[in-house]
């Protein structure tokens, strides 16, 4: 089964922005992973294993260059103010209605699979 992981281009801001915008517009439940560290890459891969069937709404996006897409990210609704500092954020969980419902920060450790499950569930719970 092909993985539902979108890696935004690292060297083409316009394309990265367009792709992220488009993906957000679609009816998807997203885990957006930020950065290019080993942890970021591994987290994106691990999260992608739980995206389910191709026609299910879960997808993973990894943004290797946060600077390119930071404006779009900042514009995503965050009513609970889960994101404190984008530079310290490893992953956000975005619901199907484009609201941030969970955040995992960068603390030097790889999030456990259980933690990722919780992120997926919080995104789906959408509240």
């Amino acid at each position, binding site marked *: 089964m092909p993985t539902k992981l979108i890696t935004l281009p690292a060297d083409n801001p316009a394309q990265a922005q367009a792709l992220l915008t488009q993906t957000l517009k679609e009816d998807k439940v997203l885990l957006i992973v930020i950065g290019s560290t080993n942890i970021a890459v591994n987290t994106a891969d691990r999260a992608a294993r739980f995206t389910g069937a191709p026609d299910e709404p879960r997808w993973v996006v990894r943004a290797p260059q946060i600077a390119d897409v930071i404006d779009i990210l900042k514009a995503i609704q965050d009513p609970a103010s889960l994101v404190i500092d984008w530079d310290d954020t490893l992953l956000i969980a975005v*619901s*199907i209605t484009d609201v941030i419902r969970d955040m995992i920060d960068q603390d030097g450790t790889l999030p456990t699979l259980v933690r990722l499950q919780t992120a997926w569930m919080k995104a789906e719970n959408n509240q």
Partner: protein
Amino acid sequence: MKKHLFLIILILSVHALHGQFLTLTESDESGKIRALNDRRQTIDINSKINIDIDREKITNAFGQQLAHDGNAAIDTLLKTLNLYKTYLEKLSKEIQNYQDLYNEGLASVDVARLDLALKARAAAGLDIAELFSNNERFNQRWEEELSRFSGGTTNDQYRIILRLLSEEIELLRTDLQTKLKEAGVYFQLAAWFTGNGNTTPVHLDGFDDLPPGEYYHFERNKLYLTQQQLDEFKGLQSFFEGMDRSQFFDKIIDAIPGMLNNVINEDSIQTQLDRLISSITNLNTTAQAEKTKVLEQAKKIADGFKLLTLDIKKDVTKYSSGARSSNTGSKTDLLQNFMADVNQVKSQIQTLEDEMKALVSSVDFQTLGAGVNSIKTDFNSLQSLLKRQASDLVERATEGIQIAIYGRKINTAALGDQQSGIETPIGQHSCQ
């Protein structure tokens, strides 16, 4: 002269209540029945005695002396089991709802509806996760299950949570069984044979092996259930017994054809066999008789292998979704049949392996001359390959079935000791 037994009833109480909750009747050889009402009775040695114990009367009689701690522990247990039951039902329902939606085709479902279904399912999952957020075992098991997870749907991930919850329920139920066993009243009954001026104790099965002295006082930390609590437990037990495990079955049953398909690396074994046979055929040797013998046996093994692959193909068809029925009862049968088929395949492989071993040891490789060592080596490696694949097959099949039924691999030796119902320690006994 008739021999008599002195029947002495020692009762777990300072009250002489035996007349109220113990009913003894004697039926003698001629079938005549009489009630035994005195504390000390002589009865005919050839009679049968029936001892009827009225549990309700006992529980009521001793109701005032229920240990308060014990009661609280039982209530907590009851509350927890009821909670687990609620969560189990909720998540199962939402998994099914999402499944129904999915079967409609998610692309055609409107976002608001999809959002609701996702939300309901996720909320149920999060509730369970929250319940066990401080439970190390639960979270370790969850991490384990997730690390083994590959492919599948989001529902499959939620089913993992269901399985883990059912594991927790099993653990509690064991706890419950223990507590129920402790809840009860114990009797000691003793008998002596008198004759010729002697008194000899007579062993009564199940009645005289309690440690002496126990019947003179309650153990205050024992737990006594009221009938209502007992009924509630029984209700929960039968709910959990009847839990629809078919949803756990689906994935493993779908995996069976794949498992069978992959068990034997048919192509590589076939290739090796073909190569072997052609090496033997092309062997330049003067020992023609020996060569013919080897060739024949090798061909026989090759035919055996072809039969095996045909049987596996038949099994694959048998277990593919088209051929299967869908209710829980036949799913259990299906798994049992599957195990039987797996064992059949395994023993066919075993036979091939043995034939190869026999062939290698019977062939006079010296006579056949040069070029023959590589043939011998090839046979040996084929043999070990088959042996490995046979044991892999059984191991993976067993594991798969255990996961399907129990949600985890189990210690099968321990499983053999488990009882399926509630046993009260008091029941009807008869002795003679």
